[in-house]
């Protein structure tokens, strides 16, 4: 049975178990967010996707990413109060991640030209906003190499015991989901260095382009019981090989 609610006075239907953010996005209503990824578990860390929710007599400012839709709910995504609180949280994040383009852009949009706050005392990974998208992606892919470490104002992201971890295969997924691109990744022709560890790259057997790390390929072969020659070709060459095969069956 569908749930009926209103977002910015627009009547909307949703399914039980859905959250405000996904329903709004489906309707083309944009709500800014830094820590949300549709394929990963919800965390509600950045506190940017704030909306005003009226449910019966109860009215509150809350995050759209982790609030379940309910029958009769009225959501306002762009009130002055909502914008004010978003701006304050972005001002806090701007002090933590002054060089992150995504933070800067959102902050500027909300009128936060500069932060009145000092950089946090503990900030070992510059520009990291502690949203844990990297940790969630790493766990989701089955590696579980990255951890949220410590708590409170000493929370940080890192590898267990602060040293290279066997579990890390150098896939770089952490960086690809990172909203502030704060994770350091360096590549040479043959190697990739990330989280203090250097990985050999697999090169495409037909064109020579880097495909993935050796460790990443070994992990895939081991966990998915794939043939030993799996993934020794890059996506582009795979596609062209496939189209050639297709061409050969066309009569």
């Amino acid at each position, binding site marked *: 049975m569908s749930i009926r609610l209103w977002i910015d006075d627009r009547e909307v239907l949703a399914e039980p178990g859905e959250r405000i953010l996904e329903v709004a996005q489906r309707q083309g209503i944009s709500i800014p967010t830094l820590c949300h990824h549709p394929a990963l578990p*919800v*965390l*509600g*860390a*950045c*506190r*940017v996707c*704030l909306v005003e929710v009226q449910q019966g007599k109860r009215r*509150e*400012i*809350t*995050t759209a990413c*982790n*609030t*379940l839709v309910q029958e009769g709910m009225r959501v306002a995504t762009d009130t002055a109060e909502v914008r*004010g*609180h978003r701006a*304050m*949280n972005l001002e*806090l*994040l701007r*002090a*933590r991640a002054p060089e992150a383009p995504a933070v800067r852009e959102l902050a500027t949009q909300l009128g936060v030209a500069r932060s*009145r*706050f*000092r950089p*946090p*005392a503990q900030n070992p990974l510059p520009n990291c*906003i*502690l949203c844990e998208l990297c940790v969630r992606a790493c766990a989701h892919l089955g590696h579980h190499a990255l951890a*949220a470490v*410590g*708590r*409170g*104002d*000493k*929370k940080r992201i890192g590898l267990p015991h602060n040293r290279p971890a066997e579990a890390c295969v150098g896939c770089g997924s952490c960086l690809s989901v990172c909203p502030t691109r704060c994770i350091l990744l360096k590549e040479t022709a043959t190697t990739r260095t990330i989280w203090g560890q250097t990985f050999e790259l697999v090169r495409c057997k037909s064109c020579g382009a880097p495909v993935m790390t050796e460790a990443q390929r070994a992990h895939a072969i081991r966990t998915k019981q794939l043939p030993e020659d799996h993934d020794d070709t890059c996506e582009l060459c795979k596609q062209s090989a496939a189209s050639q095969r297709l061409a050969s069956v066309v009569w």
Partner: protein
Amino acid sequence: MARIANAAALAAYRKQQRALRPAERKAIAVCAGTGCKAFGGLEVFEAFRAALDAHGLAKTWDLRATGCHGFCERGPLVLFFPEGRLYQRVKPEDVEEIVTRTLLGGEVLERLLYQDPVTGARHEKEHDIPFYRHQRRLVLAQNGQIDPTSLDDYLVLGGYGGLVKALGMDPAAVVAEVKRAGLRGRGGAGFPTGVKWEICRAAQADQRYVICNADEGDPGAFMDRSVIEGNPHLVLEGMLIGAYAIGASQGHVYIRQEYPLAVERLELALAQARALGLLGQDILGSGFSFDVHVSRGGGAFVCGEESAMIASLEGRRGVPRRRPPYPAAQGLHGKPTNINNVETWATVPIILEKGADWFAAIGTAGSKGTKIFSLVGKVNNTGLVEVPMGITLREIVEVIGGGIPGGKAFKAVQTGGPSGGCLPAEKLDVAVDFDSLVREGAMMGSGGMIVMDEDTCMVDVARYFLGFLKFESCGNCTSCRDGLEQLHALVTDIAEGRATSGTLDLLEELAETIRATSLCALGTTAVNPVQSTLRYFRHEYEAHIRDGRCPAKVCKALIHFSINDKCTGCTLCAKNCPQKCITGERKALHVIDQARCIKCGICRDVCKFAAVDVQ
């Protein structure tokens, strides 16, 4: 001890135990609560044991080491039954005299009686002492009487009678009884307990859990510790009744790792209850089965929050999650779960035993029954007090607490733990109940009540709580993690004289975002200490900012120490100065080198001539 098969067998066993110790039997109860223990309570207990043996009195006098009596300030405490005589500040070397003169000679030792600090009157009986006289003890009633390691002691006083009554009722009727009693959760928010049970009971599931929240994290609160240490079976009985009403077969006690004695007492109580068949399969032949597991917390204040506690019990980081779904629908391991705190559980057997109407007659319209507070800080009678809801703050602080020591003036009372609020003197006549306190910008919380005098700086207090909370934040939400750190930095600027006229505006703006946009109650209430001190003590903030002055002379950056002409040149200050920055000839005026002084205040403490000024 054999397993007890049914209610009749329990009644028979209780009767048999009562016959062994008639009410008029003479007994000595030595408090072995944490406070008295630290003052040497166990040594006193051992001295009594030896002296009773030596005088051949071991058979005529029962000697018991009991849980906390509440009056920690005057420990070690020794109570004599059946008269109810209280000796306080008892030392092992007093014991021989007590045995010969009081036990054998029937004489009262004046010097060991409590003396009222104001009137100078001595009180012989515990119930005549103002600290006790104005209390209404339900949950703490048995603490001074029973040995917490003895299930028999508990049974003799009627223990597990509430459970027997509940097992004879329909579970829905038990829920209705608790609802009718108007019991509200003692852990903080004051949600009606019966309603909470009803929701959990209504959730469809093959398995439900009950949890006892013993993660008493509020600094300055120790009532839960004292209840578990002093009367563990009372808590257990409450959980049994709740589990029966809700339909749960498994319980957990989530208890602070900083409370090792409470863990030990609880484990022992569980083993005793299992041996007697009060836990396990088919309890008292009712068909109801239930057992309890003790889990130690790891040391995280945020785990007092329900969803964080569940995460911790599941072996994860104690990070709260968005509710709904509430634990009553999806809690521990995804099953419906009911969480109540220690004091709430401990109140349940009393409601069942005495009836909802009896209980609801105590307290106010919206807040029924009694509440335990830990009355601490700058107050004469520090300790645990249990009072009927609706009593005024003034009665607690001035009458029960005996006022402020050293003739100082009262400044504020802080209720509700780190996320509570500070109320000033003009709010002392506010009634202590869930709703009145919230209306005034404070809250009941779990029952910490910290008294502050004129020497307490409210900016420093706000800074203290923010320092605590930024450390205890789980670190998930930007608003709480970064917001509290920045708020702490702003208040530190004020305390250290760096603030500007814009600081207060930014402070208030930031506080509002932290309150409005954080996920859990830690964040949304974390700004209460700042907002309540700003509401009632704004002038103190302004004095720091505008005049560069700390009125209470606490904030180090804004004070300095100097030596006046009362100095006799005794050299004591110079000897004790950790910086060695006080100079002066013997018998001549001493001088503090301001550049090197770290303002520790030790010179002022050690000076016998009031020659050290602070400005």
